[in-house]
Structures are given as C-alpha cells and as structure tokens.
C-alpha cells in the first residue's frame, strides 16, 4: 500500500511540473471547451431573441389597392413600407437580398374581393435564406389570419356558422419543459466532459508507461522491492486523479459560463445548480477507472511515446461515439442502455439537467457496469505489466 501511494505522489508531482501536461490536460477541458460552448450558444440565442423582438418590415407594392388589409397588418405590428415594384423587380430585389420579402397586391385585388372571388396576393420570399424565413413565416401567418377573418365574416353574413369551414380544430399542446428544449445544446456538454476526462489523463497514461520505458527509467524501477501490480496501480491512480480534477474543473467552469448565457431568452432553462453539478460529477466519475485502464492498456502495448500518442488519439473516439449517436438520434434512457458505458453517463447526466426523475435501478446498472468494466481493464493492465515484453 505504501509503495502504491509513493508512486502515486511522485507521478502527480512530476506531471504537475511538466508545463506541457498542464496545458494539454487542463487548458482544453477547463477553458477551451466551455468558452467555445458559451460563444456558440450565446450567438444562437442572441439571434433568436433579435428575430422575435424585431417588428416585421413588410414592403408592399400596390398598397393603395387594399387599404383594409394594410390597416389589419399595421394593427398587428407590421411596419408597412410602400414600394413601387413590378413583380419581376420584386423577385430580383428578394433574390439579391435587397429586400427580405415583398408583398405584391394586384390592381384587380379589390374587384375580385367585391365579386367574392379569391383575391390574388403574392408574397415574394427566399426560403433558402434561413435569416429571413422566420419573418416570412410571420407574414404568411398574418395574411392567412386576415383571409380567415374575411371568410368568417362572409359566412356570418350568409347566416352560416363559421365553424363549418373548420371541420377539425387542431390545438397544439407544447409539453416541452424549458429545460428539455435546451437538451440538444446541453447534450454537447457531456461530450465535453468525456473529452476533458480523457484529455486530462492522456499524458499521464502515456508518460507513466511508454514514456518511462523510453527514457530508460522503467528497468531500474522494476529492480526495487515493490510488486509490479503496486507500481502500475499507483500510476493508474495518478492518471485517475488528473482525470477527476479535469472533470470537476470543467463542470465548475460550465456552471459559471451558463450563468452568463441568456438561455431563458431561447425558451430554455438550464438546470445546472451546484447540486446538479455534483450529481453529474458523481455519475461521470465512475467512468474514470475505465478510462484510465483503457488508456494505460493501450499505452503499455506501444513501443514509444509517439506511437502511444497516435494510438490513444484513436482510442479516445470510442467512448465518445455512443454519445454522438445519442445526441443525433435523441435516444431515450432505458435499463438496457444503462449497460453501455459512456452512453449511460450521458443519458443520466442529461436527465439530471432536464430535471427528470431517474430510476435508482438505472443509476445502479450504470455505475455497476462501468465500474466492472473499469476493474476488468485495470486487471488487464496489471497482467500486461507482469510480462517481460513490457521492457520493450
């Protein structure tokens, strides 16, 4: 036990003094990831807010032909702008981006309306421009609301109940909790958490195995009266410590960054208080032995520092792949999925952020399988260290 602790302390001290390790281990997770996250979400939400609050600008050609319609639009907060454009000119103006959209009212609009025919209106829009499509949607909704109003009036004049033109009444009931809506964005966060854990332990896993062998310090170390399993477990503990610290710092930084992001403006709320952060940390940390074991096993097979680095960069993709899949497909938690490491932590962490209740069984399966796999990998690493080939 004493030897394991000695090895742990020495590896931590030595790596804390290595600036390369500190920069790569903590810079990515603690600073870079939350900042990237913060910037992108702030930009997205700023744009959403700007679109909602902006009064709708609607250039109209031929406004004089439909005074009632223009009045209706004004009443609904539209800033009407009189323009003199033919339909060809209007299309060019929208295509070139000069105008977001143009409403064309034909000369015979009033005549058709009086005759009870369908009065022609043209809304020129560019649906390929995602910037303007929200305002185009608003314009379209307002125009059809005006049409509906006219239809109702006409029916009532003829003594017909207006509901005949509404054979089905569709009500949309939005059940998305504000926190649920931010899920896609917050799903990115578990990805960053795994990255920061793996990157945090990356250099130690290599340095304590392939690195030590390459520098020629492994052989004398093996001549000391300490069992090899104590040496390698001490080294893996040091890797685990770096992974855990990196995770904790990342979560804490996220906690701070999220308070500055106007998620509420997006109709989202982040359930990300200190208690949730601690709960996420507790569930994520069960991954640490597995990650440390996995990286140590891979690094033990390689012959040099450089080889270990290229192998590990590939291996780091494995725990992250299921999360990418889950974020894209919107996978829901189930007991079976709780046996898939990294995916199970992702699902529980996102449930925590949504504020959903989490079955105790899920937590048990998640922690159980992850820790069992971790123990298995640590066992493999210990076995590898008994081989003579470990000296290269």
């Amino acid at each position, binding site marked *: 036990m*004493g*030897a394991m602790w*000695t*090895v742990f302390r*020495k590896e931590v*001290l*030595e*790596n804390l*003094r*290595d600036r390369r390790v500190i920069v790569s281990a903590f810079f990515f997770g603690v600073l870079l990831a939350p900042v990237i996250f913060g910037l992108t979400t702030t930009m997205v939400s700023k744009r959403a807010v700007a679109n909602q609050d902006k009064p709708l600008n609607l250039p109209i050609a031929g406004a004089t032909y439909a005074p009632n319609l223009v009045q209706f639009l004004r009443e609904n907060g539209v800033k009407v702008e009189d323009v003199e454009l033919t339909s060809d000119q209007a299309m060019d103006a929208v295509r070139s981006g000069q105008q977001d959209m143009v409403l064309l009212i034909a000369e015979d609009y009033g005549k058709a309306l009086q005759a009870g025919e369908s009065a022609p209106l043209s809304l020129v829009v560019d649906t390929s421009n995602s910037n303007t499509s929200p305002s185009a949607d608003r314009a379209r909704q307002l125009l059809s609301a005006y049409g509906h109003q006219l239809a109702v009036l006409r029916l009532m004049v003829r003594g017909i109940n207006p509901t005949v033109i509404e054979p089905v009444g569709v009500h949309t009931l939005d059940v998305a909790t504000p926190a649920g809506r931010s899920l896609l964005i917050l799903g990115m966060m578990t990805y960053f958490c795994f990255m920061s854990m793996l990157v945090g332990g990356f250099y130690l896993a290599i340095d304590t195995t392939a690195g030590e062998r390459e*520098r*020629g*310090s*492994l*052989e*004398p*170390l*093996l*001549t*000391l*009266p*300490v*069992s090899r399993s104590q040496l390698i477990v001490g080294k893996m503990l040091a890797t685990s410590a770096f992974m855990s610290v990196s995770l904790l710092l990342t979560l804490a930084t996220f906690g701070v960054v999220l308070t500055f992001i106007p998620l509420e403006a997006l109709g989202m709320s982040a359930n990300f208080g200190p208690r949730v952060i601690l709960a996420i940390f507790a569930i994520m940390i069960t991954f640490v032995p597995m990650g440390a074991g996995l990286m140590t096993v891979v690094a033990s097979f390689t012959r040099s520092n450089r080889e270990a680095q290229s192998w590990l960069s590939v291996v780091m993709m494995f725990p992250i792949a299921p999360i990418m899949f889950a974020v894209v497909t919107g996978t829901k938690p189930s007991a079976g999925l709780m046996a898939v490491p990294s995916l199970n932590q992702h699902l529980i962490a996102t449930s925590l952020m949504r504020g959903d209740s989490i079955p105790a069984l899920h937590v048990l399966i998640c922690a159980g399988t992850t820790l069992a796999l971790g123990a298995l990998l640590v066992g493999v690493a210990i076995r590898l260290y008994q081989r*003579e080939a470990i*000296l290269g």
Partner: protein
Amino acid sequence: MIQVDGLKKRFGAVQALQDVSFSAGDGKITGLLGHNGAGKSTTLRILSTVIRANEGRALIDGHDCSTDPLAVRRSLGVLPHASGLYAHLSGRENIRYYGELHGLRGAELNRSIDRLVERLALGAVAERRAKGYSQGERLKVGLARALIHRPQTIILDEPTNGLDVNAVRMLRELIRELRDSGRCVLFSSHVMQEVAALCDDIVIISHGRVVVRGTPAEILKATGAPDLEEAFVRAADQGEVA
C-alpha cells in the same frame, strides 16, 4: 554474494544465454567482460530480477532470483545502463523516491540521503532538477539512488560509458570503498583496461557462454596470453569456435 549456475535464456529465436555460471564473492570486485551482444546485459537483467531465466539458477545473498525476487531486490542495488532519472524531479527527490520504494521513511530516510549527498559531493546539484544534469552528475545521483538502502550486492551496467576522467576516478574510488566495506560488486564492461584496473575477479563471456573466469593472473595463465588485452581477444575467439 552472487552465485550463478547454468543460466539459459531465449528471446524468440535468439538463444541469448547458452550456459552462464560464475560466482562473485563479498568484499570483491568482479568484472563481467564481453563484446556487445555477448550476453552481459541479459545476465545482469536476470540477476536484477527484471526478467527470468529459462533454465539454471541465480542466487543473490542466498535468495533465488526466480522464486524470491522481492528478497533479492531488497539486498540488491542496481545502476542501470541508462541513468533513468526523472527529469522533472530534483536529485534529492529522485533519491528519495527510490528510498521510499525501499520502505525507508522519515528521519532514517533523510539521514541516508544526507549521507550519500555528502559522500558523493552532490551539494547544490541535489537541489536542482535532473533535466540539466551533466553525465557525471547523472551518474552520481544514479549511484546515490542505487545505494540508498545500503545494499549488500551492487550491480553496475557499463557505468563508465561516456564519462570524463574525473567522473571515472570518482567512480573507481567509490567502487573500491564499497568492496573494502565487504560488499559484493559486479560490473559489466566491454573495455578490458577498465576491468583490469579495478577487478579482483574477471568473468569473460562470449556468445552466451562463460569462456574464462578467475583472477587476472589465472586468466593470463589459462589463455597463455602476454597481457589481459590479448587474453580477452583470445578468450572471445575461443567462444566463437565453441
């Protein structure tokens, strides 16, 4: 005290050791001499319990290298071929790490470190990080690290490689001092002069076999050579024939 009897070791298709037997007594300096690739390092690795022999027996101070490696390691100090110091630790921290892994603690450990720092005249060097050490400074810290637990048997793998004259003299002096205090010192080299200058006993190894062993005088007699240099060449060739 080292007793080696009929060691054989194979790495894949290569038979690194065919038959190695010799002994190295307490209070003596024994030189293990041979060309590069003759089997010196393999023999030392088996003795330091890093690898195991396929056949034969190696005893260090009565402990069997393959069945009781932990007891062997407790009475053994090893200076490896490469210094293997940790660049980000100071000299003192490097020595302390090995001391702690030998089970030394507290005041006893501090005393042992101070004793070696003084004996090897490490002084301020011990407080500096190992990163910028010269060859000689690396050797001194490596020696202090190998001797921290006062081992009875000391193994040095080609210790004089790349050292300047002063460092070599310091090393020789220290090796003699260890012998005079009753320790068993085994060191390997491929330079005859090196061995001739220092050793009480010489073991010449070639192609995985011990071809000649004994005191310098005995070796001259056995090979019929006029000097040790010639004796080494003849003995090595003899291994070639066999």
